[in-house]
């Protein structure tokens, strides 16, 4: 397996983690979070800033996860009264505020140029074996996130979230504390996304505000939708499909003889068409959510 394939697989696994995080909020809980890329960014910047200050990767990941979870909880609490579409735009706006702050507070974040991470995940390894180790770590993290998200979805928490998604009024009448549910879903999702962000920063050794554009969030949404909204395995599948398209577009550009500045347009076009096709013909995605039916007539 070439180094390039290993690189693709590592990025896909990191996308998978982020995709699971959004699926927990949007798929299971029905919360239209359009600012997920900001939580990825919190994890990434926490990693880069702590690494620059001389702390280890473990400390960086912990800081990122805790800060993101706290930010997610606050946003979930602030947005408790909002309808889906208002909530979507509000989170999009918050993510953009975060990005503007990152660009302007250059003393801590390196400004628009971004910030590097001097800490490597496996400094004792070199070349191919380092890539393999990072891949193993990323896949392991993805599987852990998958297991955590799966367990949460199957337990009482998941049942409450699905009820909140389908019948919010009924959920309140059962005495569920829906604000607490939303806050928890946001905090857990944010923490998982931050883990993805931290891994990405340590692996690439760099993060910049250019990585946190709203398009990033739209991309995560595409992964969740085409994979199968509400299904965590689907979210992972979607992440791998989108990563495959991104790499495929690079080759397609060469085959078609496009100038390299059009590669971005080409892959955005493919992603857009794929997303629209799925929404119009198969809105439940490639691997639909499995809902248990109890005493159902049909």
């Amino acid at each position, binding site marked *: 397996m070439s180094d390039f394939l290993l690189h693709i697989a590592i990025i896909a696994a990191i996308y998978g983690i982020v995709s699971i995080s959004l699926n927990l909020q949007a798929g299971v809980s029905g919360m*239209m979070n359009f600012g997920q890329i900001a939580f990825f960014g919190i994890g990434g910047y926490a990693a880069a800033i702590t690494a620059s200050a001389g702390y280890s990767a473990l400390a960086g990941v912990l800081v990122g996860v805790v800060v993101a979870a706290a930010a997610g909880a606050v946003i979930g609490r*602030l*947005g408790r*009264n*909002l*309808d*889906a*579409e*208002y909530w*979507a*735009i*509000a989170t*999009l*706006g*918050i993510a*953009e*505020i975060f990005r*503007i*702050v990152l*660009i*302007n507070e250059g003393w801590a974040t390196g400004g628009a140029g971004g910030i590097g991470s001097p800490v490597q995940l496996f400094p004792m390894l070199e070349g191919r074996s380092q890539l393999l180790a990072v891949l193993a770590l990323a896949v392991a993290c993805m599987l852990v996130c998958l297991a955590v998200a799966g367990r949460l979805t199957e337990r009482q928490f998941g049942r409450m979230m699905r009820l909140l998604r389908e019948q919010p009024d009924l959920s309140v009448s059962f005495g569920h504390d829906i604000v607490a549910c939303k806050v928890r879903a946001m905090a857990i999702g944010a923490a998982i996304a931050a883990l993805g962000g931290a891994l990405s920063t340590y692996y690439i050794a760099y993060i910049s505000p250019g990585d946190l554009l*709203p*398009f990033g969030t*739209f991309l995560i*949404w*595409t992964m969740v*939708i085409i994979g199968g909204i509400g299904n965590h395995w689907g979210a992972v599948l979607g992440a791998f499909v989108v990563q495959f398209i991104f790499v495929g577009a690079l080759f397609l550009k060469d085959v078609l003889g496009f100038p390299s*500045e*059009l590669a*971005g*347009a*080409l892959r*955005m*076009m493919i*992603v*857009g*068409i794929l*997303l*629209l096709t799925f*929404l*119009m013909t198969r*809105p439940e995605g490639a691997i639909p959510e499995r809902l248990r039916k109890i005493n159902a007539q049909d």
Partner: protein
Amino acid sequence: MMQFLVDSLLRAGDLMLVTLGLSTVYAMVRFPNMAQTEYATIGAFVGLLLSGFGMPLWLCVVLSALVTGIVAVALHRFAFARLLRSSPVIAMIGSLAVAMIIRSAIQAVAGTRSERFKLPIDVPHQFMGAVITTTQIVVLAVTALVVVAFLLLLFRTNLGRSMRAVAAQPDLARACGISSGRVVDIIGFLGGAFAAIGGTLLAIGSQVHFNLGQDLLLPVFAAAIVGGLGSPIGAIFGVLLLALVETLVTNLNFGPLVGETFLYVPLAYGPAAGFCLLVVTLMFRPRGLFHSESKRV
């Protein structure tokens, strides 16, 4: 002081027509169409294309509004109307997909360079201490004219009454014999046309590139939501308020507050101020300032 008002007005002029279109269309279709700001890019580039053929400027604006309006109606019928049968949320994500397709298509066709109309360089006027160019005055005047014409249509004609009826109570409106499909088409057309006029005016006043739609997305949605999605009057006030806040934050001297002579918020924080206005408004008015459940039409 005068310069500050002029700057705010110019910023409001940039956003006004696109926001008005977005909010009015939302009242009909009940999902936020995130492709709406891409219609501004389409309009701007169609206008630029036509002016390349040597057409007079006013004709470019009219034709690009016409073309974009038709595109908007076609997209609604082909994509959004079908997606809406699933749910408004699906339609909203679908509009995102449409926005990505439009943006990448424009990037592929028009390239990544900024484009502008070839106009003679005009002399800035001094007006009560503020500087404004003739082009800017014309752009503001055209924007104001379109807004007033739309308000007259909405509040003084039978068609406008039907629109307000469909917006308030779609089922009841249909039961009263209003052809709601036709009204939705007309509003969809106007929404696309307004966005196109707004985009073309942006290209006339400054310059545009393929990312215009993405740059407009958040300010326009922030303004529409602050005013209350679905309320045309709210959209107008939302835009004015947003422009005022964005300009105010970067022009105020916060120095005296912290005991220093000068302390200005960096210019780049202007947009952030607008989004903060959005978040703060939603905390106190979850559906915007001008939202009301139902009213007499």
